[in-house]
Each structure stands twice: as structure tokens, then as C-alpha cells.
């Protein structure tokens, strides 16, 4: 997928980009098409555009739960929040006849 035969990103630049996109800072010091191949852009950076945004929302929700709930130290489940935020908020998916409101209690 690296059709342009781009070389590896140098260590400092790669670390900068890795930390930046994981923390949802998305700092783009490089000129996109001539530094990152298509595979890195699709399976690396674009994935982090979803994942890092979901992390931020999850932490905000956990903070609200911490304020709102008494008598418990439980804040929900990060992995469940992560999946739900990606599936329902950032990439709003609902299968046929499979909406949350319609689901029976289990």
C-alpha cells in the first residue's frame, strides 16, 4: 500500500506524530502525501482520529459519573465506553431492528 515507496519516518518525527494523534492533538508537521503512505494514513492516523476522540469523550463521561454518583466507587467500564462511543456517537451505527431503545432487558 506504500505505492509511493516512501521511506520510514525519522524517529523524532514518528514519535511526535504517534503521541500527537494518540492524544487527539493531530499536529501535522509533515506534508501528508509525501511523508505518510496510504496504509499508514488509513490504518494508523485515521483510526486514531476515531480512537483518540473516543478516549477524550470516555474520560469526560467518567468524570461526570464521578460527580453524579454517590455510594459507589464504580465509574463504568472504559472498554465498553470506548466501543459504544465509536459505534454509537462517532460512527453512528444501528443494525436493522437493533436499536438500543428497542432492545429487551437481559
Amino acid at each position, binding site marked *: *500500500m*506504500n505505492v509511493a*515507496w*516512501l*521511506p*520510514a*519516518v525519522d*524517529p523524532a*518525527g*514518528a*514519535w511526535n*506524530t*504517534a*503521541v500527537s*494523534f*494518540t*492524544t487527539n492533538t493531530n499536529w501535522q508537521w509533515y506534508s501528508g502525501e509525501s511523508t*505518510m*503512505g496510504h*496504509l*499508514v494514513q488509513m*490504518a*494508523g*492516523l485515521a483510526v*486514531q482520529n476515531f*480512537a*483518540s476522540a473516543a*478516549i477524550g469523550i*470516555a*474520560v469526560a*463521561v*467518567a468524570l461526570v*459519573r*464521578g460527580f453524579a454518583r454517590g455510594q459507589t*466507587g*464504580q*465509574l*463504568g*467500564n*472504559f*472498554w*465498553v*465506553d*470506548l*466501543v*459504544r*462511543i465509536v*459505534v*454509537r*456517537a462517532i460512527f453512528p*451505527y*444501528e*443494525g436493522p431492528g*437493533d*436499536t*438500543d*431503545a428497542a*432492545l429487551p*432487558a*437481559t
Partner: protein
Amino acid sequence: MVALAVAYRPLGDYMYRMYRVGSSARHLRAERVMYRVIGVNPDGQQSWVVYARSVLAFSAVSILFLYAFLRLQNHL
């Protein structure tokens, strides 16, 4: 302002359903598949320590994965 006035009730209900936890939570079929793949009990909860550890672990793994990805892109 109008959009907010129109949306806050249905959107608020939607967000409530999305963020509720424990036994009142409902799970979509696609979500259940993902929980099974990553080995998570969807009705389990975490204390703040475990929640924070999960956030940091996921971020750390993401950073290392992305770093390796960028360093090795000439081999992919």
C-alpha cells in the same frame, strides 16, 4: 439555538442510553461481538484506578503501535 432547542431532548435521551452502565445498559449485536473479541464483560464496572489504568494502557499501546507503523512503513 433552534437546532439545540429541537435536538436536546432526543439527543439527551440517546446520550443517556449510550452512557448508562451496569444492569440497565443494553448492548447492540455488533457491540456484543466486539466485547467477545476483546474479552470484556460488558456489564462489569471499574473503579477510578482501573478505569485510569485502562485509559493509559490503551493510549500507551496506541502510541507504540503508531510509532512502529511509521518507522516501518517502508517495509509494509
